[in-house]
């Protein structure tokens, strides 16, 4: 049973890779384009911070570390959840009907039939570069415990974003198109998440903590490793919630997904 599933995942991945190699030059360029597009934002922050020195106590390398978590988690997340990102299109062009006609789990197919390696390499690559630049300069003494914490934080951060994607994808069943909702909730919140939570107005903080909880994707994991003074404003427990929150949010989104499937209407011809 498990061998059968792993075999299928292998065949799906091989198929994606083969399609990818049909356009080698384009593949390299697209990854590079994503990498550079995201880098420009970072470069602006970098040169701004050179003038200000610190932002609420965070120096430029600590900020880059904060950014790196955001990009690393997105890079991994998009490898698994490309199908959820593009789910609106899949519903509209009838691709989802085809998933229903195959004797496999629906979410399983959505997750493993697609993987945007361009985005994964672009975002993930940038995350790794930022991590390499910053990790040695922010005074973290890496130990086994901290490395484990880091891995669990990445896992939680991936699931939190995956849950948001799953939730927005599920809305497609009712609305057919949710691109602007994703822009509104996901991408805008993500822009805030590049900076320390403490610099924002209370209202924004509330959103980042309780509505689209990006603060748990990078701010609190970074705080655990860096221990900046502005952490005093938040409960200590927030440092440890990321993996549990990721699992909880994902399960909740999954229940919503299962519930919504029976309202699926197909796209018509």
């Amino acid at each position, binding site marked *: 049973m498990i061998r059968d599933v792993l075999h299928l995942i292998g065949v799906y991945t091989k*198929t994606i890779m083969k*399609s990818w190699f049909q356009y080698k030059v384009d593949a390299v360029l697209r990854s590079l384009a994503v990498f550079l597009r995201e880098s420009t934002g970072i470069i602006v922050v970098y040169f701004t911070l050179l003038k200000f020195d610190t932002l609420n106590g965070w120096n430029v390398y600590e900020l880059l570390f904060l950014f790196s978590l955001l990009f690393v988690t997105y890079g991994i997340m998009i490898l698994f959840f490309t199908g959820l990102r593009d789910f609106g299109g899949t519903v509209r062009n009838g691709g989802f009907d085809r998933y229903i006609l*195959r004797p496999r789990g629906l979410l399983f197919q959505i997750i493993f039939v697609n993987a945007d390696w361009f985005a994964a390499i672009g975002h993930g690559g940038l995350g790794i570069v930022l991590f390499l630049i910053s990790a040695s300069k922010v005074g973290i003494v890496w130990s086994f415990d901290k490395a484990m914490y880091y891995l669990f934080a990445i896992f939680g951060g991936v699931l939190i974003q995956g849950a948001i994607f799953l939730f927005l994808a599920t809305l497609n069943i009712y609305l057919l198109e949710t691109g602007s909702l994703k822009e509104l909730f996901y991408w805008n919140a993500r822009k805030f998440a590049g900076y320390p939570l403490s610099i924002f107005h209370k209202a924004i903080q509330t959103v980042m903590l309780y509505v689209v909880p990006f603060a748990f994707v990078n701010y609190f994991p970074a705080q655990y490793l860096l221990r900046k003074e502005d952490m005093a404003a938040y409960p200590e427990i927030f440092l440890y919630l990321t993996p549990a929150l990721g699992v909880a949010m994902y399960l909740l989104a999954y229940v919503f997904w299962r519930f919504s499937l029976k309202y699926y*209407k197909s796209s018509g011809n």
Partner: protein
Amino acid sequence: MSFIEVTNVSKRFRINKRAGGIPGMIANMFVPKYEYKQAVDGISFSIEEGEMIGFIGPNGAGKSTTIKMLSGILCPDSGSIKVGGYTPYKDRKKYVGNIGVVFGQKSQLQWDLPVIDSFELLKAIYRIPEELYQKNLNRFTEMLQMESFLYQPVRQLSLGQRMRADIVAALLHSPKIVFFDEPTIGVDVVGKETIRQFIRELNETDNITMIFTTHDMQDIEKVCDRLIIIDKGSKVYDGELSGIREKFGTTRQLDVEFTQECEIEPVENVQVIPLDNRKKRFVFENRDVKIDELMNELLTKYSIRDINISEPEIESLIRKIYNGEVS
């Protein structure tokens, strides 16, 4: 209990009805107005194993919706569907392994990859045993003459080639039922004939139950034994193809070419249409006029060079059924 049992099935869709223009769009955001469309309205039919059904009707008649309910994509609002003991939308994972679906307008092949790669993927998805896979692949590619393009990327194929590949893709796992939704659309005459022959042959040799929607009457005449016609969500005909003529095709026409120009005396219940100087067309209802008596009368009264009796084309009869001209 038949193999496929559809009992009193209905399905309606809610459609968001927008007023025109930007004010309408904004109004719709706050106070959406909905309209209900009854796509399928209390349809019942049963199909035995191995039957070859033509499922036809005008655009928007509810064909696709019915096919989607039969294949488990949509669940009916009311009524019941049983296929080989399964309820499609409930037992999805177990059920869909037994069916194959060809959407003529939507390929299930990997666009950028050679045809064979899509087949290998399907082999893994459907857990097709190696032996069965090889057997089916060899047999179908030979029957459909696909050896020449099996290793070509799908994007380089002609529409006819792509359609053949899509048909094989739906059959690799040896389904018991196959739904063909317009499998010859856009395919040239030769390609259509190949596809029809293949479907016909497979139905006969493998006893696969097939349900076939199309707008091409040639498809129907050459492939299907039984027709189910639906219109506005309801069934309007269910029976043999030849039955359509008996039931609806009661009009006959007789084209007569006379040796010279002549005046025709009116005949009771027969409409006479002049075609040109010496040709006239006699149109009448089968039940009102005995054809031998009419011909006798014409032969004795006039000098005739040629005579030609024709029955109405199936296509024109079905067009009449669509238009509601017959009942």
